[in-house]
């Protein structure tokens, strides 16, 4: 015997079988997807926070101040591949989760995406120089284009910050949407669990 249920009473994790993975990711799974993505972003920031703490509070020498993971896996910090990998994960995450956003939150999310796209190009240039064994501009170390203007370690923090700001504005507008945007949303992020089965 079956019991009739209103959509709102159905469990929020149910996903209709006919939906594609990307459709689910931007629909019923969007909230969880964003949580995982935000977890990755914050883990990266946590590494920076740990490194800054080691350098500026504990006064460790820079080569020793490798964050948390870098203490056990030093190659993670010194390898350009790790930085490129993170830039790529960010880019893919911003791209595959974009369809869940609507209206102004989508606009801000895409602003973050395009900045990250450029950031990724910069990392690809660095990685390319490591692979080819020839640095740009005759530099003794791999150089990105922005380093011509800001030749600093802080450039990495600047890039992460300028991607993070529009991303958070998008998240804010996505979690607290206008009424017009709320009706267009297909995910549960703004507290509409019935959309999980829509």
């Amino acid at each position, binding site marked *: 015997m079956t019991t009739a249920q209103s959509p709102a009473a159905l469990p929020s994790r149910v996903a209709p079988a006919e939906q594609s993975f990307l459709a689910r990711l931007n629909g019923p799974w969007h909230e969880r997807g964003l949580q995982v993505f935000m977890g990755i972003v914050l883990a990266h920031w946590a590494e920076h*926070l740990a490194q800054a703490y080691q*350098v500026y509070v504990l006064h460790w020498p820079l080569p020793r101040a490798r964050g948390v993971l870098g203490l056990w896996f030093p190659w993670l910090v010194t390898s350009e591949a790790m930085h490129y990998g993170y830039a790529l994960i960010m880019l893919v995450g911003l791209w595959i989760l974009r369809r869940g956003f609507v209206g102004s939150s989508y*606009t801000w999310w895409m602003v973050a995406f395009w900045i990250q796209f450029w950031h990724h190009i910069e990392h690809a240039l660095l990685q390319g120089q490591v692979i080819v064994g020839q640095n740009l501009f005759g530099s003794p170390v791999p150089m990105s284009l922005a380093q011509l203007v800001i030749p600093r370690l802080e450039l990495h923090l*600047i890039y992460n910050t300028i991607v993070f700001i529009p991303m958070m504005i998008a*998240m804010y507008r996505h979690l607290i949407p206008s009424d017009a945007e709320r009706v267009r949303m297909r995910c549960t992020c703004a507290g509409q669990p019935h959309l999980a089965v829509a």
Partner: protein
Amino acid sequence: MRDNRTSLSRDVIRALLIFGVAIAALAVHLSGVGAHSHDMMAHRGAPSRIVGDQRVGPYVASVWTDPEVGSGPLYVAVEAADGRTFTPPIAVRVGLAPVSGRLPEVVHDAHPMPVRRGARFMTNVVFDRAEPWNLRVVIDGSAGGGQLASRVEAVPNVAAGPFVLVLSVLPFLTVGGVWWRAAAVRRRAKARP
């Protein structure tokens, strides 16, 4: 449909404008604070060329470093002078002393680095004060050698530690703030009759 598109482009333009202003403000702030950092962070950015393509015996050498106060790498790139066959130098030494003469010259032995063209040597140097320094690079090789002399202006740096720490904490506060605000809005919406 057209209205939607117009509204979307207006949104994009508005978002880009606000974001542009925020970035400009951040850039101005960083150029004043973050761009001159504590000595622990110094020298980890890209080095700049302080001596460009100078003839030293059978070689042409250029010298690269980040001349901020603190310790960091100094690179000497060496190539063959025009028309000569390149024979890698046997030894490269770098001497640094303040122009004021308050300290004796410190000579560093530079170590060769793997490169595909020419040769590159690296050593760690220390500028303990923001002032002009005399730089001397001595290159010895089986094909001959020589020395170049130049002057480097070491520049001061300002502690960026508190700034970097605050910047690294902000994302956690922001995410917490957004999550808290969203939860409050949800609670209010549920409480509505």
